[in-house]
């Protein structure tokens, strides 16, 4: 009797799982395998092609444009991850405290998340090209009156602002939900022992929302490494190729540039890099998590 129940249960689970596994395999795994196949050819995306062995991979490591895009993307992702997590944690603490219009404020801070990356990019493009230099001229500031997007030294910073502005929304939401899981009595017990102010945050709040910190770090890093929309709409990879992210380069070189095989090789390497980083982050941060 028990066995039958068990097999019934497992049948149900299988019926739920198998379609998803097949869908995942067809639309995701197959595509990855196919991409790996293309990475060994000089395929342009259509028409005929020849097998070229590992030439694409060897070329990748000597292509300065590819190397620069990796350096840029990693620098960008690390700075953005740090910035976004600090800002959203501070915001979440503020929005979780007993303030007026808490619900409305939370809704307003969440707003950027429901806008598309392209839309935000175009709006910020206008802001950086016309409004900010306009303000700069009005207050006679030499540094501000030039468009941030015009120089390779500052364009990445404009991109950080744009991407961070949007990403803070979701991360704040996750931190707020994290803060709600901390029971009030822990704080009360801590207060008796003298944990108030920053001490309270450092010794009680932060360790207890550590799982949410892990999620945010992994999500942020992965999303920022794959930054694409904002690059397209804000800088188009320029000026002087200073803001070419890896995803953007794969797209522009592979699809519009016609180097499909070559950029497939780049995509395979990028896939391996992202998986490695995500696993490392999860392992490292999980070991720091506290359980109540």
């Amino acid at each position, binding site marked *: 009797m028990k066995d039958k129940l068990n097999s019934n249960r497992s*049948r149900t689970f*299988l*019926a739920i799982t*198998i*379609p998803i596994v*097949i*869908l995942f395999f*067809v639309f995701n795994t197959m595509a990855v395998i196919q991409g790996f196949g293309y990475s060994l050819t*000089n395929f*342009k*995306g*259509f*028409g*005929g092609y*020849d097998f070229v062995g590992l030439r694409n991979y060897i*070329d990748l490591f000597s*292509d*300065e*444009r590819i190397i620069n895009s990796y350096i840029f993307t990693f620098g960008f992702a690390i700075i953005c991850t740090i910035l976004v997590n600090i800002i959203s944690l501070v915001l979440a603490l503020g929005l979780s405290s007993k303030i007026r219009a808490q619900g409305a404020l939370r809704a307003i801070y969440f707003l950027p998340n429901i806008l598309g990356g392209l839309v935000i990019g175009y709006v910020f493009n206008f802001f950086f*090209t016309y409004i900010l*230099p306009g303000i700069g001229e009005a207050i006679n500031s030499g540094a501000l009156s*030039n*468009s941030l*997007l*015009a*120089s*390779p030294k500052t364009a990445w910073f404009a991109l950080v602002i744009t991407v961070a502005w949007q990403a803070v929304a979701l991360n704040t939401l996750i931190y707020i939900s994290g803060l709600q899981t901390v029971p009030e009595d822990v704080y009360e017990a801590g207060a008796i022992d003298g944990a108030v102010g920053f001490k309270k945050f450092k010794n009680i709040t932060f360790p207890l929302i550590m799982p949410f910190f892990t999620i945010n770090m992994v999500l942020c890093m992965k999303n920022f490494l794959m930054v694409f929309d904002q690059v397209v709409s804000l800088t*188009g*990879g*320029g*000026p*002087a*190729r200073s803001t070419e992210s890896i995803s953007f380069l794969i797209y*522009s*070189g592979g*699809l*519009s*540039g*016609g*180097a*499909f095989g*070559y950029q497939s090789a780049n995509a395979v390497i990028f896939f391996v890099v992202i998986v490695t980083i995500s696993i490392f982050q999860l392992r490292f941060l999980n070991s720091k998590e506290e359980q109540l």
Partner: protein
Amino acid sequence: MKKYLSASICLTLAMSVLSGCSSSQDIAGKTTIELVTYKMEAVDLFNEFAREFNEENPDLNLVIEAPKDATTVIKTRLIKDDAPDMIGIGGDSTFSILVDTGVLGDISDYSGLDDIKESFLEIDKKLEPVPKTGVYALPYVANASGILFNKRIFAQYGWEIPDTWDGLINLCETIQAAGLAPFTFGHKDSWTTLAPWNALAVSMTSPDLFTRVSLGQDKFSNHYGDIALKQKQLLEYSGNDPFAYGYNDACTAFAKGLAAMYPIGSYAIPQILSVNPDLEIGSFVLPANNDPKTNILNSGIDLQFSVMEDSKVKEECYRVLEFFQRNENIQRYINEQISVPCKQGEFELNESLTHMKDYIDANLLSDYPDHHYPSEMGADALIQTYLVTGDLKKFLDTFDKDWIRFNQDNIRKLLEYEENH
């Protein structure tokens, strides 16, 4: 267990079939011809063409699409095995790639080819990375690139059109002394750096440079240094930060009279006029050298039509080409898009092109060099990088190195071809 498995497989298959058949525009009893063109700015005229063509040919249904970033759309549809019947693109590196991969059909049996000016058919021939037999595109209209100028400002100050490089620089000094901005640039969009680059390069290099470099007989660094220096010199006369504004911003600035000149192709004129319809625009050949006789016009095929190899309606596509090629339709197109017809015969050219007409009539023209650069090389970004950083040596080295890297398959095929011929 088996039942669930087969059910889920069926479901998956059904879904993949569903996603496979995209919107089909077949109308009962009519043959549909699908044309995708990259001339987004001429979409209204193309829709008129399609309507008239369909009224004239009740058995056919011509559908013309002009999506944004059409060359990527075309390539993506080729990847999906969902190619249109015809494409309308420029005679550029996209055409090079398409003709090389063999997705374009041979149209040498199309009778209308006899009316096309020989020089434009030659331009298309030179764009084939490895020479092929057959004709793969019908050149429709050409554009010219040089310097656009504000006629009213020039007339007001009595400035003359320069025909030497020194003359151009002197003119810029004069304009600056008069308190005006000589140029406007839209170099935030990196492709705009190619406009002055091409216009300078046609007069300063020979068109067989690409083949010579591929065969290892020459190097770009022997020729491109001077061009780069001259282009950088032009930036000194910009009225704004050249890298802060894009193409649209520069067109708007020129339309509002904020600069006397704008180094860009004739393709920009419709957009400029859409901002200020009363602006009187003139154009002249960018005088790259101090000997006026060596300066030639930068002109290339702006729009050409190809029939896809896999199209099942080739005959019907020819009827579309015949319709497009009627003199009155060409005249309508060049009136609206301010371009130069590739067909022989008397056509009325737009006023703003009059100074270039002599070069066109005398056949003193040469194709855009960037049409030969492989697009994955990103020559526009290389030039933009040089203009921003000023590192000439690195620019020239990268240019030579990247040319070989991104052309290695073509170079190999070209060497084989040279051995066999």
